[in-house]
């Protein structure tokens, strides 16, 4: 009898839990009044951790695209953005990729900022037949290294970016380049293609220094590079490290021209260096600054109106366009993964978007990538073509 009583307690607890659980769950459902069928789209990116600024910027832009779509009266469906955090790690990336792609109610995904994460998950998307737009990862292999029909990418690859970067550098007359790059996939990838393209154009790498991304002291490396007297110090890595390099260059009184990759172009670089420190730094970005994009002004206005607490950052526009394209596809062929994949695969030719025309090639890679060289002027990143450096009013430190 006593034993029966001990059993009684857990059963009571379970009953209570189940009842309360049932009571809670219907309330949490979306009670949206629209009669349209709801279609889910996944957004996957680093929402926490060191890269969360860019991840949150991308997410906000994707939210904006969904918001716009839902306020378009002509649309047949109501869209819902399901957000997943990949923490920019392969393990979490795999988990959320599976979570998104295994949920049949999710039609497509806007995924990943980190290239390694994207490389780790493309198999999962392919297996699930899950149409995926890569919004921020730039490693070429993500689209070009496989035959997966489901993977698309609007931003250009590291190959394209560095081809243009090399051309830009050569055009400005920099011949001898000293290189620092971080040993992540990002830095290494950029360096590989930059070197290839620069050498094709007759440039010369006088020193190459790989550094750990968390290395604080770069004096030894910079001293060594400076001893080779380069025209330009080129750095491949993200903004915090870029800040470190530039700060230490300043401290060492190295006046050589400094140039970075797309990861450098954000507010952090300018705010940490101050207008004086960042003045004249060069970089090249995918697409163009939001303001000079075809639909940039409207995007910025809408973005501000939604009062997101984080800036869109460099890849926000791509996340917006990716989401928008996904929605267009669903509008055209309905919420069916296979049809959406097919549509994206075959029909995206010269489609107008806020970043200009988008065309997917046979790998699902946007064939018309747009790149803009940028220069930091008065504490702001501006397109080089529109800057006072172009007009000759100011002069780059190392320019001949």
């Amino acid at each position: 009898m006593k034993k029966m009583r001990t059993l009684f307690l857990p059963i009571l607890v379970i009953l209570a839990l189940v009842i309360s659980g049932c009571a809670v769950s219907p309330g949490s459902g979306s009670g949206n009044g629209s009669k349209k069928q709801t279609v889910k789209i996944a957004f996957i990116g680093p929402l926490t951790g060191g890269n969360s600024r860019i991840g949150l910027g991308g997410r906000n832009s994707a939210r904006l695209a969904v918001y716009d779509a839902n306020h378009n009266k002509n649309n047949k469906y109501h869209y819902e953005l399901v957000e997943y955090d990949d923490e920019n790690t392969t393990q979490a990336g795999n988990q959320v990729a599976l979570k998104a792609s295994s949920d049949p109610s999710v039609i497509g995904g806007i995924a990943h900022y980190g290239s390694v994460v994207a490389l780790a998950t493309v198999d999962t998307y392919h297996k699930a037949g899950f149409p995926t737009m890569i919004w921020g990862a730039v490693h070429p292999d993500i689209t070009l290294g496989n035959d997966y029909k489901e993977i698309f990418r609007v931003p250009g690859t590291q190959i394209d970016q560095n081809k243009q970067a090399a051309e830009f550098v050569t055009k400005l007359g920099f011949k001898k380049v000293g290189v620092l790059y971080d040993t992540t996939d990002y830095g290494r990838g950029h360096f590989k293609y930059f070197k290839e393209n620069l050498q094709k154009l007759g440039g010369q790498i006088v020193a190459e220094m790989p550094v750990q991304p968390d290395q604080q002291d770069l004096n030894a490396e910079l001293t060594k590079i400076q001893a080779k007297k380069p025209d330009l110090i080129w750095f491949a890595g993200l903004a915090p490290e870029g800040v470190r390099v530039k700060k230490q260059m300043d401290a060492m009184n190295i006046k050589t021209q400094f140039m970075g990759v797309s990861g450098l172009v954000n507010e952090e670089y300018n705010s940490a260096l101050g207008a004086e420190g960042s003045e004249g730094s060069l970089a090249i970005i995918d697409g163009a600054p939001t303001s000079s994009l075809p639909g940039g002004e409207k995007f910025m206005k809408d973005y501000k109106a939604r009062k997101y607490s984080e800036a869109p950052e460099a890849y926000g526009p791509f996340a917006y366009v990716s989401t928008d394209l996904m929605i267009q596809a669903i509008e055209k062929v309905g919420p069916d993964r296979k049809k959406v994949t097919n549509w994206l695969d075959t029909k995206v030719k010269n489609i107008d978007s806020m970043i200009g025309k988008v065309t997917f090639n046979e790998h699902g890679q946007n064939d018309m990538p747009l790149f803009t060289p940028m220069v930091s002027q008065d504490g702001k990143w501006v397109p080089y073509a529109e800057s006072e450096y172009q007009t000759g009013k100011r002069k780059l430190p190392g320019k001949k």
Partner: protein
Amino acid sequence: MNKLIVLLSETVLFALLILFLIAESVSITILFIVAGFLCAAAVLIFPKKAERIIKPFAKERRTAIIFSMILMAILPFFFTTQPYWLLTLSLAGIYIMLANGLNMQTGTTGLTNFSGAAFFGTGAYTTGLLSVHLGLPGWLTIPAGMFASVLIGAILFFPVLKVKGHYLALVTIAFGLMFNIMLNNTDAIGGPQGISGVKAFAIGGFDFSGMWAIGPFIFSSYANNYWLTLLAAILALAFTRYIYNSPVGLILNYVRDDEWSSKSQGLNISYWKLIAFCCGNALIGLGGALYAHMIGYVAPDLFSFQTSLLLLSMVLLGGMDSIPGVTVAAFVMIVLTEKLRVIQDYRFLIFGLLVIIMIIFRKEGLIPSRVRPYFPKLKSVLMKR
């Protein structure tokens, strides 16, 4: 009667687990967590009453273990459409192996190992490389991964046998960092991009990446991998338990607690430390090998200091030298962090605070290790007198 209690309470626990996993809504998750905390608190406050529920388990150990295995084995039937949770549970299984391997080193033998992730990586990379470049089958690559992990561990550990305490901690920290840097910088093994396209495990013509069905239930590769991991985890746990209850476990405990008196009992402590390190690494390597086959992709980012710290926290939270404790801790930490993506950015902060609080107020961990009964028969004989 005891049997009934065991069967019933296990079924209930199992049902709760499935409900917990399926529940999407945040409020239910939190409800579950609060309930879990309350239960844990109740066990701590009323140990006598809790003993009454635990006792049937001790008496009907065989039934309890077999039935829980059956329950875990039928779990994929509930998740045919949600392979995500199967992946997460498989990961939890792998972490159970890793944490138990580390427990054998740190908990049982007192060897502070801050490079668990490095040996995890050794197993995963070896398996991945052999599978991708040589196309070896899984039943060869998995033992190879284990072996590599043991070998690398022994090579590192053999010279530092004489180094103790803080110094051993520092050596392993340094080794873990060096390992991660080397993975990132060596292009031959993929550099920062790691190795992709590791084949799924396959045996006797059955490919674990394939789908199959029983009636209306369709099982994906994740279910297959889940079973594989479950099997491996059960074997690993059986192995650790066997070691723990064998004279070897006693000897390792002795080496941990008092080196001098172990020496005076004729124990070659260097030898036994090496044995413990290798056994632990075999489990860690096994986890790595299974991970490589399951995910199909191995990259350096996972094998970092952060992961080593996570593994050590599992051992510490669960209870040093306590196999059930470490197992529960590994399981809860993996599943709960998945469930608690809501708190997002504050995860690490909360986590760190939790570990500190635990260390200060309950050093022995979640489920403290008990005095081990080496000679239960003898005990009953003695107690009768």
